[in-house]
Structure formats: C-alpha cells, structure tokens
C-alpha cells in the first residue's frame, strides 16, 4: 500500500506526463478518525473511518479545474487525472488564477502523539466511563474523539511538503432535571483527557441549574467562560479576518486601527509546539504564527492565494479549500491575561456568568452583529459572587463592539483550547470580563 507521500508524487507525475504544459497541484489527506459518543449515560454510537482523499488542481490554457477521489489505486488516480484534465479543457476561463505556491519550507510538520494515533475504542471508552461515573448517577452525554492525520502536498512549481498530527477531544454534559452544564477541550494527546476530573467538574457546575430563575432581558456586565469566548473567535475567523471578505468591503476589520481593547491580542497559530493543527494549507502554503490583533490594534488579515492577489498581499497559509468563501483562520488563540476566573467574577458587582453560546448567526456582516442563545449554564453575579442560576437568554450583539477599547475589564489567565467541529482546528481563549452584553430575549420569549 502506497504512503500518502507516494500517492501525491504518483498523482503529480501522472498529471504532468499527461499535460506537461499544465500547472498541477496534488493534496493528499489520510485521516483516521475514531469517535465514541454517549448519551443517557451509555455509549450509543461508536464510529470510525479511515479515509484517504486525493485532491488534484489543474490550470491549463487559462482554465482551472479541481477534482478529488477516495479511490487511491492506480486506476483511481489515472481516472482522477483524466477527468480533471478533461474538465480543465472545457471549464470557463479563469482570469483570476493566482498561480501555484512556490517552494517554501514548513515551520512545523505537525504535532504527533504516537499513543493517540494508536488509541483503541477501549481507551476512549475508559475516558467516557470515568466521566459518566464521576457524574454520580446524573445523566450524561457527549463524545471522546481521537484523530490521526497524515498529509502530503506537491505541485509542478516544486513545492512538496508533508506532515502528521493528532488530536484528541472531549465534549461532555451533565444533566440535572433538564438543565445542563458542560466541558469541552482539545489536545494533541488522549492522555490529556481526564474523564474523571472533567466529570467531577461538570457535576459540580450543574448543581443548582435546574432551579434557574428568569431575569429580564437587557444589557448586562458579563464574565464569559472559554467555551463562550470560542464563539467570538470562530466568528472573527470566518467573517472578520477573511481577506476576501475584507477586499469586498464585507468585513468589520480596519487594518492599523485600535479596534479592540488593549488587553486583546489575537494570533492564529497552528505551528507552535503542542498546537492542534495542520502545518500547511490546501494550496501548500506553510502556515505561520500570524498576529491579527496586537494589544488592541488590528494588524493583519488571513489570505489565500486568490485573496492575496485581490489585496496586493501574499498568502498567509489560510486557504480554506473553498475559493468562493475565501481564507479562514482555524487556530485562533486569544492571549491569556493574569486573572483567575474567581477574580474576574469577584470584580463584578452585578452581572452574568455565561458558560457557552449556541446557534449564533450573523445578522449584520459589517458590524459582525450576531444573534444566538446562552447554553449550559448562566449565573447571576452579585457583589463578586455567582449567586443564582439564571435561565437562558437570547442575545443580539456586535462582537467587535463587545471587545472595543475600554470594554474588556479583565482577561483570564487560563486559555483553554476548544475543539473545532471536526477536523484539526482549535479555538483557544481565556475567560473574559466584559463591560456589557446585549441580551434581547428570555427563554420564555
């Protein structure tokens, strides 16, 4: 059986032989993903797949076509090359073709943990069992996942890179009379997932939530826990620092301006040691440690090769694989501060402690205003103490304005990596104490 690197080389060779004048790029991704899912306190769905996908891009006579296959034998690769070339000859002209990535070394080949790559269903079940047991009879649900990615990229311009990485993530809730509390984290190592500790923590958190009271909607001072903060990071990545959307004037980002509080520093980082992530993008551009916001000042955008051309910039290694959508950060890190969560809560006279956000959607792309709901636990903070569980709210809030100069009153000291949904991405941030969050509706309407 061919390795992922060999498959990339063979597909590139086949395409170049068939069309020597073409610009050709091949990306190979081999992913083993194992996910143990539990609900009503037992494992009910335990799944795995082992998939290799070969993606081929051809630019020929001013026209571009891309195709992929999971059939990686000689026949499958030959068919992939034949139909991609046939499509390239028939496709409409592509005057915006940005060319292939030039040879450039990787800053990292990825963070691999051999034990996680080899983890068994029984090992994931042990993590789940420890979580369920720690909930002491309360209903639980969630998943434990391990993933092993091996990738290779090669193009006719001479760029050839490969890498390996692992991820292990856990998402669990403990339920008490219809109320939920949660935990969520991702690492490169399964050994970092302590089911018993996580279960005990969430079991403590859920206590009292079932007796939540409803408070009126309105503007509240808030402490957002890392899971809630991750939603800000996701939306900044997808709808803010996207170089294509910025070029089309569809983003709130204004380079060089102090758009955020000085306490905010935002970096995209898939390459530092221990980070969950893929070390290059789908165009073969090495990922880098890119500072997007430094001490409140917006400093950079994410680019793929096409958006870079639009903006007169260079690719930052952020191709999402979807040219229509444009580039996207997948490993945002909001720098930690120096306050414990208890200290953040302690500095609030009256406000809300919010665990998580749910189903957030953009209402106004230019202000990045979203609506969504709270989930998995809200508490009223009075005179520095979380005193009373509160029912969920609906909110409508412009995210950048919530972090604007003077609006960030404290930053937590522990940045917690939250799993992206699938793949090898992570959103890492600490708890935040914000001056205001606009809650526009209550659970009852």
């Amino acid at each position, binding site marked *: 059986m061919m390795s992922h690197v060999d498959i990339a080389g063979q597909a590139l060779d086949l395409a170049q032989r068939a069309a020597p004048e073409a610009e050709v790029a091949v990306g190979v991704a081999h992913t083993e993903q194992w*996910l143990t899912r539990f609900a009503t306190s037992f494992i009910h769905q335990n799944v795995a797949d*082992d998939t290799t996908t070969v993606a081929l891009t051809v630019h020929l006579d001013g026209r571009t076509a891309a195709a*992929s296959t999971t059939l990686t034998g000689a026949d499958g690769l030959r068919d992939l090359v034949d139909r991609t070339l046939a499509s390239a000859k028939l*496709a409409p002209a592509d005057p915006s073709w940005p060319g292939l990535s030039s040879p450039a070394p990787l800053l990292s080949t990825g963070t691999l943990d051999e034990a996680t790559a080899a983890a068994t269903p029984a090992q994931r079940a042990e993590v789940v069992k420890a979580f369920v047991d720690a909930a002491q009879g309360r209903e639980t649900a969630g998943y434990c996942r391990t993933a092993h990615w091996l990738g290779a990229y090669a193009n006719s311009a001479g760029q050839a890179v490969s890498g390996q990485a692992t991820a292990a993530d856990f998402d669990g809730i403990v339920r008490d009379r219809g109320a939920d509390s949660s935990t969520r984290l991702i690492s490169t190592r399964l050994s970092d997932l302590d089911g018993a500790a996580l279960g005990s923590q969430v079991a403590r958190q859920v206590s009292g939530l079932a007796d939540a009271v409803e408070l009126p909607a309105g503007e509240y001072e808030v402490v957002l826990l890392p899971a809630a903060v991750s939603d800000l990071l996701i939306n900044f990545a997808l709808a803010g620092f996207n170089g294509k959307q910025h070029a089309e004037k569809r983003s709130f980002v204004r380079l060089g301006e102090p758009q955020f509080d000085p306490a905010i520093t935002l970096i995209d980082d898939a390459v530092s040691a221990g980070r969950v992530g893929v070390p290059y993008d789908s165009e073969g551009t090495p990922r880098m440690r890119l500072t997007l916001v430094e001490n409140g000042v917006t400093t950079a955008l994410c680019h793929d090769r096409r958006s870079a051309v639009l903006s007169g910039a260079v690719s930052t290694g952020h191709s999402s694989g979807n040219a229509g959508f444009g580039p996207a950060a997948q490993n945002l890190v909001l720098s930690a501060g120096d306050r414990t969560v208890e200290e953040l809560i302690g500095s609030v006279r009256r406000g809300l402690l919010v665990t998580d956000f749910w189903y957030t959607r953009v*209402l106004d792309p*230019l202000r990045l205003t979203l609506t969504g709901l709270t989930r998995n636990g809200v508490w009223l903070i009075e005179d520095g103490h979380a005193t009373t569980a509160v029912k969920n709210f609906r909110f409508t809030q412009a995210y950048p304005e919530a972090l604007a100069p003077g609006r960030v009153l404290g930053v937590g000291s522990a940045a917690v990596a939250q799993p992206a949904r699938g793949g090898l991405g992570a959103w890492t941030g600490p708890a935040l104490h914000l001056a205001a969050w606009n809650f526009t509706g209550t659970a009852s309407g």
Partner: protein
Amino acid sequence: MSHFDVATAAVQAALDAGARYADARVMHRRTESMNARNGEIEDLNQDESAGVGVRALVGSGWGFYAVPDLSTTAARLAGQTAARIAAASTQVPGPALNLLAGQPVTASWSSPCRVDPLGVPLAEKGDLLTRTTAEMAGHGVIGEGVYQIWDTRKWFVSSEGHRIDQHIRECGAGISATAVGEGETQRRSYPSYRGQYGTSGWELVTDLDLGAHAARIADEAHALLTAPACPAGETTLILGSEQMCLQIHESVGHAIELDRILGWEAAFAGTSWLDLSQLGSLRYGSELMNITIDPTIPGALGSFGYDDEGTAAVKRYAVREGVWVGVLAGRDSASVAGLDYGGSVRADGWSRLPMVRMTNVGMEPGPHTLDEIIAATGDGVLMDVNRSWSIDDKRLNFQFGCEIGYEVKNGKLGRMLRNPTYTGIGPRFWQSMDMLSHETTAWGTPNCGKGQPGQTGHTGHPAAAARFRNVRVGVTA
C-alpha cells in the same frame, strides 16, 4: 464481485465477530459544483467518493467502521472492526436495544431525472453562471452564483436479508446579489440564498430561469441599502414560502426527530421540547397546520425509495389539524419509544453512521393565496427569503432574519423594509397561524447539519405563504 457481494461479506464478518445485527452500505458518489462571482468562475470541483460503511450492533451500542476500499478483504476487515468497536461500547452499557421488526426487502429504486446533470457540458453550466453573475455585477453589486450536483449509487445489505440498490440524482442552483453601502451590506437571492435543490435532473435548474431574475435581485439589494429598517414591535407577520421552509425545518422538523426527543443528541444538536407522553394529544399549532413526513414526493430533495436501514418510503403525518401525531424515527429509536414505524434514517455518505434525519417535512396546502392573505391584512409586515437563523437546543425559542420585508397596510404592500427579523416560541407561534396559502413549493435544503462526526443532510420542505398574529419583529442590537 458485485457491490452486493462486498456488502454481504462485510455483514457476515460483523456477525462472525459477535454482532447480533449488522448492515452494510456500499456507496459510490460523484459530485460537481461550480461557483461564479461577477462573471468569473471561482471554483469548479468534481469529486468522486466510494467505500463501504458497516454498522454492527453488540449489546446496547452501535459500532460503525468505514473504509474507501471495495475489495472483499477490506469489507470483511471493516465488518470485524465494526463489531470490535461495538463491543467496546459495552464498557459503558445501556438498556437493551432492539430493532423494530422489519421484513427483508429486495428492491431497486431510482429518482426521476430527465436531463442527467453530470451530462450537461461544463461550458454550458459555466456560461449560465458567468452570464448571470456578470449581469448582476453590471448593476453595481457583487453577483454570485452556484450550482451543485450529487449522483449517488448505493447498495444496502442487512443481516436480516435486505438487498436494495438505489440511484439518486440531485442538483440545484441559485444566485445572489450583495450591495455594499456605507456601513451596511444587503443581499438578495433567487430563489433562495443557496438556491433550490431537488432529486431531479438539470431540468430543475433550467426551469429556475436564473437569468430572468438577475437584474431584479440586484436592484432590490441596492434598494434595501436605503430602505427604512423593519420597525420593532408586535404585529401581524406574513411569511413568504421560502421563509416558511426554514420555519418548518427548524421549529418542526428538528423538534420531531425521535433521537433528539430521547436525549441521544443532548450534548450537541440538543433535545426537543416535545414529550413522547403527549404524542397524539399535544396542540402544536392552529387547525390549519398539517405537517407531513413524506419521502415519496417526486423530485423533492428529501425523497428516496428506501432509507438507509432498508425501510420503504411512506407518507405519514407529524402534525394533523394542529395536533402532534408523528415523529421522524429509525428502527432503534422507534423500538425504544414503543412506536411501530421508522423510515427516516440516513447517512450523508458511506463513511458516516446512519441516523434520524428529516426526509421531506412539509406543510399541506391551506385554503388561501398570498394575495388573499395580503388583502385580508390591515396592518403588518411581509418577510421572505431567509438570511439568518437561530434556535435554542430544545427547538423552541427562535429568531430568524429575512433578506427583504414589506409593510402591509390596508390590504396592500407598502414600503420595502431592510433587516427584517422576527422572534417567537414554537408552539405559540404556530398556534397564531390564521391564514395559509395553497401555493406550495417543495423547497430543498442541502445543508442540514447534525451528528458527530458532522453530517450534512439533504431535506425537502413543501411550504406556502402563511400569516401569524402578534409576532415580535424588528429585534436589533
């Protein structure tokens, strides 16, 4: 070696490894999509995927394993691995899980298709998108267009004797115009943001006549930049057919998924406000509300011959004259709930575990027309074409935004309104529905997310315009 033989080998291997039930799906799928912007093609993708996914039941837990290798050796290994994974689930066991009894079926089914969408020349499809988006760009907006095609063949075998092959062709297309103003962007789409989709051939796209709507939506996007904002307050709300599709999908379709009701999706997708003890008696909406689960509708996106457990497509009611009477179920969840039907279990590919999914969940026609509804409304707001959607994890508290709104005054449409939004609580909202059109469109939604690992479902939603009383509109930051 046929695909049935490969699937049979996988099932037998799972049984030999200790599974008390197993099934396998061999799937081969070709997809094609194209995106264009302002007269240029941004993306042309043609993907091919093939493999076998094996589901094994050991004790109370499913094991599932999938490989992109259609050799019998790989299939047998996949069957053994699925059983081994299921066996590991017994470390955290649940109550005994049985499957609803079913008769083994041997069958073959294909979706209707007059013009093979993969057979239409790329140049012709590209010309459609470049010409249409260039026309919109000529009106000073960002013009975008997309089409998507899926051609799926699958061969299903179960340890109970099922042998079913299906060939399902789906496609669709849409265009959108984005006007960028000072501090604001406005978007108009036709026929909806991502387009219209069905289990149909390219004739669906031809019938959309995208070009005929390019200038109109571009002009509307511009007009929205200077239109007055949707006023805030409580009013009579008229929803157009496309927004009704979204309303049904989010606040009925997901709520009646039995796996959610049973708590099997509690950590991620969420649960449901519905309680099984009220099935057959709970008032969901007004007497105008008749919701069907109907995968037999020719050409609708959620149609099939058999679901991914081998259950034949059958029409049934979910809500009848406003009363909740049915759910979307599978053979395992139905058995747990004491129900006698499944039929709504699907996977988005060979590498994913089949799970409860919407098929075609839609509203049966009412007695009115949209014109009659407008004419009967003294003061209200009309909204259509979804722009944003958010709903809580019990599928109860929602806030939806639309691309366009209009005042309704004294039975006539008035000024255009920008940024229209409305919010409500599901059953309260549905009980306020007092007029319903019979001008139904079977909308297709190709982007329904659910499950871990994530799956993207294709669902259909017959929907028509309707009127709702005392709805809160115009929620802003």
